[in-house]
């Protein structure tokens, strides 16, 4: 089976693609999708560590409970974030993140 490092590298590359999306894209909905990708990358590394760090033939279930909590918090975050995007669209009539510059001096 693949060594732990390959799972961690996969998770790191997924996270980096998320970072690149957040930095490059201007459409705030796509930026939000990239945030979800980054959360998922963290989940992958947690599950891989849970499998590699177990004892007595069982994985470390503390990590899997943490993954469950992260998924629940991510769902709440998606709901609130999309509500904020809808509110932003009502106020600005655009989803371009560069239009949010009213605090600029």
């Amino acid at each position, binding site marked *: *089976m*693949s*060594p*732990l*490092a*390959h799972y*961690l590298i*996969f998770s*790191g*590359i*997924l*996270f*980096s*693609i*998320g*970072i*690149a*999306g957040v*930095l*490059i*894209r201007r*459409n705030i*909905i*796509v930026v939000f*999708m990239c945030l*979800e990708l980054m959360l*998922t990358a963290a*989940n*992958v590394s947690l*599950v*891989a*560590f*849970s*499998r*590699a*760090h*177990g*004892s*007595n*033939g069982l*994985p470390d*279930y503390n990590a899997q*409970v943490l*993954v469950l*909590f992260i*998924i*629940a918090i991510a*769902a*709440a975050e*998606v709901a*609130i974030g*999309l*509500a904020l*995007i*809808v*509110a932003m*669209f009502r106020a600005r009539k*655009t*989803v*371009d993140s560069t239009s949010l510059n009213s605090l600029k001096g």
Partner: protein
Amino acid sequence: MDLPISQILFYLFALAALVSAFGVVAFRNPVSSAMCMAACFGFVAAIFFGLGAEFLGIVQIMVYAGAVLVLFLFVVMMLDVKKEEKLVVSLPAALVGTCIAAVFAGMITNVSLSLPGATDCCPMAAACETPANVQSNTTPNPSKFGGPLAAPKSGERSDTHILGEMIFTKYNIPFAILSFALLSACVGTVAISRKLRQD
């Protein structure tokens, strides 16, 4: 060198997940990005299955590919984003973003490869054919991040059973607090997205 089927499947699913994650960033149309995101989460769920975390894989499919994708598509359709497709990404911004992400990926790769015990072991229990090491690995060793695990004994409690038992005993209070967090997120979403009164 012959690879076991579980390893081939991991590399296949990892490659597919990375390609669809790239699609999220590359596609102009937000609906295509959302579809790529769902595909990526599906492949990640497959990797969870391969790691023996069946419950988390199913939760990943249900929550992300189900609920979150529907929310995203609903918002994309509710907002008029057709005219946003013409947005041009500036070349310096793209270059800087790619450089930062590449440096980060290289850093993580370096750290992962230099973890003690990260490359010479297998995180998957069932595929490990080293029964001699099974007995020596009954206690977690903090200096070694990985190691061959014992194969799960057949007839023992399933993954979901143990996870549920853990949630409702050791993590019962955090679980209850989490439900309050979800409730407040619901109320907050309604409060943010409702129309303000004019008076």
